[in-house]
């Protein structure tokens, strides 16, 4: 519980948390409460923000409601960010755990495999994957997960390498516990805190990746997203700069909030480590 106390006393992290809470509420309930589709032509195009009472943030190049786009975009950004991170953890944690726990040739093979994925330019790989499997929420989420798991595997491997010769692990081995049990019940719980910190930062990176993909036209054609809005406004930046400015701010605020929370978590979970860093 010390962790929660340390976190709640960290004003910056709490600010990030509050912003994320608000964004999540918008993502979950916004589309139900706000009356309006992000795709429908509702007014003449290029209404600037705050010029029309009904459409607060104005309309885009095709006369679509910008505020509706932002609300629906929050949903897809957070969803893709969270789900792809969970999948990346599900790939990276077992791989890293096996490599670190067993060592030897298992470690060698798994780490070579990880290295290939780390060498490949990740954004280019994500583009190739989404393009070939056709853009959809599923292919985007999957592609982001596939390019994001290597750091998890490396981190978990390092933790397992450091912990596998600790006395409590050796005791568990002498007790005749299965490898599975030792990995899941003894070592993993003790290496959770750096994984949590990394995961919070991964959600941020995933949101940036998703927006970059949809900016290039690789978004799900059925779903409005912030990156798509910027991409669609690219050609009219001279006439209507706000159309690309507003969704960009939304992305930056979301990612910043996640990073602030992640750093707060880092300080709360690894007080010694971050203390050393801060001086």
């Amino acid at each position, binding site marked *: 519980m010390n962790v929660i106390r340390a976190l709640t006393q960290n004003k910056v992290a709490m600010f990030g948390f509050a912003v994320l809470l608000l964004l999540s509420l918008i993502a979950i309930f916004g589309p139900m409460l706000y009356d309006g589709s992000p795709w429908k032509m509702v007014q003449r195009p290029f209404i600037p923000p705050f010029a029309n009472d009904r459409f607060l943030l104005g309309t885009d190049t095709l006369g679509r409601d910008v505020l509706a786009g932002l609300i629906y975009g929050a949903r897809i950004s957070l969803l893709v960010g969270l789900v792809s991170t969970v999948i990346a953890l599900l790939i990276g944690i077992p791989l890293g755990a096996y490599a670190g726990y067993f060592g030897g040739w298992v470690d060698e093979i798994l780490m070579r495999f990880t290295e290939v994925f780390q*060498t490949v330019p990740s954004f280019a790989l994500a583009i190739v994957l989404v393009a070939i499997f056709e853009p959809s929420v599923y292919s985007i989420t999957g592609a982001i997960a596939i390019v994001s798991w290597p750091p998890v595997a490396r981190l978990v491997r390092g933790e397992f390498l450091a912990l596998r010769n600790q006395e409590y692990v050796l005791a568990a081995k002498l007790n005749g516990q299965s490898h599975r049990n030792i990995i899941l019940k003894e070592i993993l719980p003790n290496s959770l805190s750096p994984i949590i910190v990394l995961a919070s930062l991964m959600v941020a990176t995933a949101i940036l990746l998703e927006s970059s993909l949809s900016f290039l036209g690789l978004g799900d054609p059925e779903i409005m997203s912030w990156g798509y809005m910027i991409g669609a406004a690219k050609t009219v930046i001279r006439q209507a700069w706000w159309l690309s400015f507003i969704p960009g701010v939304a*992305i930056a*605020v979301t990612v910043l909030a996640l990073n*602030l929370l992640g750093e707060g978590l880092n300080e709360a979970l690894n007080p010694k480590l971050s203390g050393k860093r801060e*001086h």
Partner: protein
Amino acid sequence: MSIQTLMYIGGRLIKGAIVLLVIAVFNFFLIRAAPGDPAKVMAGEAGATDELFLQQLREQFGLDQPLYYQLWVYISNLVQFDMGITYRQQMPVFDLIMDRMPATLLLTGAAFLMSLLIGVLAGVVAAQKHKQWADSFITVAALIFYATPLFWLAMMAALFFSVYLNWLPSFGMETVGANLTGFDRFVDIMTHLILPATTLGLFFTAVYARMTRTSMIETTRMDFVKTAIAKGMTPNRVTYRHVLRNALLPVVTLAGLQAGQLIGGAVLTETVFAWPGIGRLMFEALFQRDYNLLLGVFFISSAMVVLFNLITDVIYCVVDPRIELSK
């Protein structure tokens, strides 16, 4: 160079070659995993209606042969830099990529140098003015650059410096129709380079600034620095000769990591600034659904990262002889 160093470089070469082989095999299966006829997938929408072109692709890649034979054909073609022909440009994929390569090398190289220079400098200043306003300013700026999407930052920079202030060009690599030569052409390209290179490097500028700051502050508290101060060295001399030199080591390890990010980021920057490099080519391939070209760019950009990592590894082991060569 010692035998040990040569063996180390040889080992790295083999490792790089294996990585490239894995990527090639991955590309091969990716085309076949995509829904539909592989010839049609390769041709993309551009050439899908031309039966003659599809036939040509089938023959070239042996698509009517068993899978292992196809893989063999694919890999042996690749080794000879043969990646097939793009339908729209009617040009070998490899030649098309090499045509665009210099522009990307210029852009990513400039972005790399800029991020390293500005980042390290900002980190040194932040560490020296630790807990003063310059430190806070640099820390906050780094936090913001961490969080902003690269393509958006690029667009905003173009909007501000090009559209609003009219200082810098934001389109292409040279002024269209100016036909400049010699020094004038050089200056023209450099002015076109400033915006794309700065925005592409900005993320890592922030990373370097934060790393240098942390690393400097840690090194400052080491005993040899205390000794240097105690024997009466001037503060600047201590900072640059003792602290910075040692603080830079962790920064160098990041440089290899940056290569992949720069190549990926180049797709976005080149798209925003219409920079005629391979990133822009990748975007065009996407737009035309030309998957053979897309995978070709992907393979070559991975090869660039492998090569860059090799170079940084070698530099690293020359700069810091303490590194174990066997690893």
